[in-house]
């Protein structure tokens, strides 16, 4: 059972990684508009070079 002393901090590190990833995506504006990107996905890529 004393393995808990290692596993629990490890689990917390995994959580920390997930939280950092989430904060990064939220700050980057990935949740600003949830309606348009799923539609944008349908577009062909041909002219993507022109997009900044």
């Amino acid at each position: 059972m004393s393995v808990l002393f290692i596993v629990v901090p490890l689990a917390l590190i995994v959580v920390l990684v997930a939280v950092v990833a989430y904060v990064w995506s939220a700050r980057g504006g990935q949740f600003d508009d949830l309606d348009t990107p799923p539609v944008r996905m349908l577009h062909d890529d041909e002219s993507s070079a022109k997009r900044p």
Partner: protein
Amino acid sequence: MPPALVSEGDGPQFCCAGCRTVYDILQSNGLSQYYDFRERREAAVRSSGRTFEEFDHSAFGELYVQPAGAGLSRTELYLEGVHCASCVWLVERVPLLLPGVARAELDIRRSLARIEWDAAAVPLSHVARTLDRLGYSPHPFRGVARDAMRRREDRAMLTRIGVAGAIAGNVMLAALALYSGEFSGMEGSYARLFRWMSLGLTLPAVLYPGRVFFTGAWAALRTRTLHMDLPIALALGAGVTRGAINTITNSGPIYFDGVCILIFLLLTGRFLQQRGQRAAADAAELLYSLAPTTARVIDADGSERELPAVALLPGMEVVVRAGESFPADGHIAAGETAINAALLTGESRPVSASRGDPVFAGTLNVTAPVRVVVEESGETSRLARMLRQVEESAQRRAPVVAFANRMSGWFVAVVLLLAVITFLLWYPRNEASAWDHAIALLIVTCPCALALATPLAVTVAIGRAARAGIFIKGGDALESLVRAGDLVLDKTGTLTEGRTALVTWRGDDSVKPLVLALEAGSSHPIADGFRRAWPGLVAPDPSGVSHHVGAGISGTVTGHFVVVGSPRLVAQHAHGGEPLLAHLAGQPLTPVLVAVDGAVVAVAGIGDRVRTDAGSALAALRRRGWRTTLLSGDDPQVAAAVGQTLGFAADATVGSATPEQKLAFVHERLGRARATRQPVVMVGDGVNDAAAIAAASVGIGVHGGAEACLATADVYLTTPGIEPLVRLVEGAARTMRVIHRNIGFALCYNAVGVALAMSGRISPMIAALMMPASSLTVVLGSWFGRTFDPTPAPRAAETVPGDSRVEVAA
């Protein structure tokens, strides 16, 4: 494309230019059968053909354009008619083809296109024209500056919620281990591990996402008001302090799980509420976007130039072409035309106007170009005054929020008082336990469940209602609709279908092709009504057709001389119309007689047909105790006739009401209903109803309404007809029952908690369990409470059998 914007039976309509191109390709290749296999959802593509020169004006730039760095400018344009995936494609790709446009991005939910461009390389008007040509008429959006701030706020809020949620989940896991340890026995070292882990997780949760409650409470303290944040902050602070002390001393309960869940749930509830309020703020901005922005001014030397409408001055002369909106109030200096003033009056029939007649900004010039001398423009025009009224009415609705805050103020005061009493009761006996009990009371009575009860239930109900075709913007609408009160309905477009249609036809079927032959070439609304009524009929080619202005049309069809028109015109060519005309007596219809070779053979009743479900829906609402009033901008006689068929009392039918009168009417009803706290509900579809809709306790926009009206309405219906009103009222009642049940639960928990804490009997187990358990009950209660029937509404019957009725193409 949202059904709210489809106008039925106007032939093929498209949500966007992309769909239209596809349609053309399918048509030209004989593949049009495709459209028989899919549900038809259509709306017109309108290209306004304007030059948008005012977009380059410096006055425009000051208002709407922001620098975006690297020599670029940024603006946001509200686009009409954005609805689907191909819209996104067109709006984001086509402007990029212009040299100098760096970025075009569309937010499909808000129909806002964000454009970044190099003002030196390409004028904004060029971009605007490109968008307009695609069928997305652009309007400047005033919220550009605020939008960036709002986006930052949203991101910060989402980050807080995410962090709080992750921490709450992990603290709950630790708490689970600790609780099972309480029952089955747990070694001290493991218990200490989990307690310290909880402490380590809770501290950042309180310091980062939870900080908003402390700043809120501090602000409330400084302004000496009682705010919901105050007990929350007290409970959080007390819980964490006590928990930390107990962790260090390794004795007694730690309240960390409750604290973390509390932070997470409260933040979520607050975020949901905030989004609802934003929608309302956007609505006001939208109104200004829809007002006309450009004018064509005639200079002294006779040359024309475009100016922003706000830059017009009294005395200037402007030219307004057919199909354009008047940019300012004034009077006609030269020319003769017909004006559609539906925006201001709700009367959809064009009124003829000539030299000297007044015109108003926002109304539509239908038939011919005219010159107008400006009298009032910009902020002083009648339209601007009306929009301001709308905005003011929308803002005045704040008292509901104020009331909620007062309620929570009382709650705070009672809780604090109880905590002090507990402390004083126990202090003489044992100082340490007095502190313990007072803190336990604060934690147990934390208004978590109470604060969540309403937003959660309302959010769930709004989601369900949306699936049933009813869009509700705020919770107060549901709250107000519970009590039956005054229901004020607009006529044109709300109770009726809002367009000229063939309502009755008396005569032989063999006459129909002859009538259609003449009407096929006419652009008159009545001709339109005939064409829509008999879509499948093949008409022979007429010859010698002559139009009699304002009276009718005549010509020779397959060897017969046919006259279709007003009784006066037909009487000049034929006789025997009286018995047929008698059929229409007393109905709000315009009679059109048909004469073939000198004999009147048929009569058509042209009018605005009453919606098929109006009668039954109104009856159902009246049974629930609603007092119904018909408030129409139309002619009093027409209003009275429609009112009579739908069972309105004679004194509850008001005709020829201007937008200002409609607003006054609603205010008067509101004043009368204040004592009984009954709601005044306004149902309408036009811009002329917008002010009244905004002022009413609940404003409802119906299917097919104007954008400005839908924007100010608290509720709008996306399925045709007014039967959804009945479902709305029923759903609101059920939602409020769920809310009351939630609050009841929360109060019960608190009452029990207070009793236990005051009597000093609160065990660590109960205190720790009661906080999350009460929230959980509320969450589950909201989720499973039956509010709105989630099944989509059956489409209203649009086809009515019988020779006298007309089939409407959907």
